[in-house]
């Protein structure tokens, strides 16, 4: 399924640098979670002024604006913005189609480790999940960074809704190449006031194949074979079907307020992100 530990570590190390140039889109959103450095939903103890309001019994007297009391004789509370650490749920689809071509497999792992490093460097609370059809498994972050233990995880049947944390950022890395309807999956991503991002890596040979003539197709997941004469007309219809498949996903993503970014295997990683993910808001430039 996944490559060996050294390969994974190498990619992880490379993505540390990439996460310094770009990151997941934490900015401009209201997060919930433990204390951190990102704008939270409530008031807190940061130095960013948020609002004034009348004192209510039980309020912390340390936050009474004494200057305002001197001017008005009323107790007025001075509120500051809360700063939290976002919760990030990172889901990696590890079905065989994700690794059907070397270029695509590399891009899949780059996206995973980029997202992981980006969340870590932003101080987010990260959880990694591996997804295999209807089953999922939690992959500890430290193990994921070390490329260890992925082959001995306890898999559980979870369906499209994983045990998300409330208000978390859910990052799904999947090629979306399965015949089912996208709705349940996207609804799962957006559940519990979550924010969904889907990175969909693809290989050029999938989007624009050079098939012609007699071809014996072998399904990379089921091993099923099919002999097909591919004419230019059939090839053109296939390309149309590919575009229609992702157009359908895109429509569904818009409906569920999930960001979808297709990331090709070419060119290099940062340039791909800049071209294909940045305009869609799936990533942002690091400060």
């Amino acid at each position, binding site marked *: 399924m996944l490559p060996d530990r050294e390969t994974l570590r190498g990619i992880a190390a490379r993505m540390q640098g990439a996460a310094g140039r770009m990151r997941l889109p934490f900015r401009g959103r209201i997060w919930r979670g433990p204390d951190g450095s990102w704008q939270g939903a409530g008031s807190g103890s940061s130095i960013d002024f948020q609002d004034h309001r009348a004192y209510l019994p039980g309020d912390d007297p340390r936050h009474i604006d004494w200057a305002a009391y001197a001017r008005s004789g009323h107790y007025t509370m001075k509120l500051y913005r809360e700063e939290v650490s976002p919760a990030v749920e990172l889901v990696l689809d590890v079905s065989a189609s994700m690794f059907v071509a070397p270029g695509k497999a590399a891009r899949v792992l780059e996206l995973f480790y980029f997202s992981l490093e980006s969340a870590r460097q932003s101080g987010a609370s990260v959880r990694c999940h591996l997804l295999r059809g209807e089953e999922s498994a939690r992959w500890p972050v430290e193990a994921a960074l070390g490329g260890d233990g992925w082959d001995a995880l306890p898999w559980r049947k979870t369906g499209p809704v994983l045990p998300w944390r409330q208000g978390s950022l859910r990052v799904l890395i999947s090629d979306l190449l399965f015949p089912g309807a996208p709705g349940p999956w996207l609804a799962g991503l957006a559940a519990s006031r979550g924010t969904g991002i889907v990175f969909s890596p693809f290989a050029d040979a999938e989007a624009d194949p050079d098939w012609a003539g007699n*071809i014996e197709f072998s399904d990379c997941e089921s091993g099923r074979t099919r002999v097909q*004469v591919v*004419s230019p007309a059939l090839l053109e219809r296939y390309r149309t079907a590919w575009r229609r498949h992702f157009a359908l996903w895109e429509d569904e993503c818009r409906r569920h307020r999930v960001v979808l970014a297709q990331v090709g295997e070419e060119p290099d990683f940062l340039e791909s992100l800049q071209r294909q993910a940045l305009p869609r808001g799936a990533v942002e430039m690091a400060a």
Partner: protein
Amino acid sequence: MKSLLFSNPAGFWALLGIPAVLLIHFLQRESRRVRASTLFLLEQLAPESAQGRRFERLRNSATLWLQLLAVALFAWLLAGPRWLRPDSAQRVVFVLDSSASVSAFADEARKAVAEKSAALATAAARTEWTLVESLPARKTLFSGTDRAAMLAALDHWHPDGPAHDPEPALRATLGLVRGRGAVVFVTDHGGPVPAGAVVLAVGSPIENVGFTGLQTDGDTWRVLVRNSGQLAVRRTWKINGREQGTLELAPGGMCELRGIFPPGTDRLTLELDADRFALDDSLPMVRPQPKRIGIIRDPGTSFDAFFEKFTGTVADRLPDRRDIVLARYDPFLPKLPEGNAVVVVEQPLEPGKLLAGSIVAENHPLVAGLNWQQLLVNESFSIAPRDSDDRLVSQGDRPLLLLRHNAKGRALLVNFDLRHSNAAQIPAFLLTLHRFVESVRAGLPDIEVLNAETGQSLADGSRAPDAPGFFDLPAVRGAAHFADGREADFSNASSADGVTGTVAALQLQNSEQDFFSPLWTLLLLATCAASWAAVRERKATKFMQNSAPLSCIFHTLI
């Protein structure tokens, strides 16, 4: 305007590479296997699996067109395009073998001449055609620039002559050509020809059975039949169209037929079942009636015994006619007989010593080719020669044999005494006497009836016809039959074509190289390089896995 020709038309065989390339491209992706992640998309488009075919539809690819262009350019360069010079001229002489054996292949020869002349015509802008036979005595059949007329003149070629050496005719025509054209000897067998000439042989070993000789003796006739082929054969034979029997002949075997002329019948025609060589399949013959000659001897001479003996050796004599007189010359009564005579000097006295000096014979038909050096003659009286005499043989200043013309004929004067000479014992003297008698016989006004071989020279200077049949000439009547066993034997017949190479040589001589040849070569190299680059552009491993073996070989080659 310049004409285009090809120095190596066989180079166009390279165009077979085009179907080969197409076949390779048809087979190219026959066994391609793909590991796919989007099979569900494909299954939605084509729910039914279409089974693969051995040959897939041709793909319109740059590689295909580059390879086809490369093959076409290669074939073009291999064919050697050249441009004929508009001022080029040549002379082509076809020397047609007049031998009778070629008649068995006359149609093949005409076709070959038509075909090869068409090829030769492409070798120069203007061609002068000449058609001659290999027998120098025969007239030129055609000379001109119209090839169609030359081919029509082939109908006047009737190969019925005897076996002969074609070299004189070939050498004469080589002088006409002088290196600016070709001399083609059209025959039925190969063989050496003078340098500069080429052989166009159209023969092949064939079976032949035919008459090969005739002998008549009074009313009886004998005929030989020969099987010149390699197989045993059976033939029926006929006389004047009536079947007489069947002959069975082993390979190379002969048999004799004999018969008599029925009373009242002077002409017969023997026939055999027809085969491809027709000249010896019929044999016309006549009951021979030789021309007879009367020889009278002077009585009471010293040479009676010699005269009688000689007269006995002359055939077909008439006892009571005086066509030739055998007489003596008496020096004391010097008188020569009128008309045709053989006169011998009679020495009344003892002869002198042997004559000295070298013996010289003139170039005269009566003594030509005879050896007189053994002749010994003693000194004797002599007949005084006249200026009008033909000196046939002399020793020193002394004429030994003279031919004197008189009002009624000719006299052969033997100017020495036979008794004092060894002339009666040497062949040259006796042959001279016989030649004289035969020349007199030929001059007789009677008509001779004889059987002759085709083309045979007859005594009156005429020739028998070249084709078998009866003939009726002013002085001779008779039948001519074919009897040349060499021409009837086809075991050495063969075919050969020396013209094709000559055409190529003449084309080179009369043309100049295509100006654009270097450009085509560069284009070919560029096409090969582009094709190679196009192939390299594909993923090499994928290509090698998916391509058929033939395709791999092709691409490895280019």
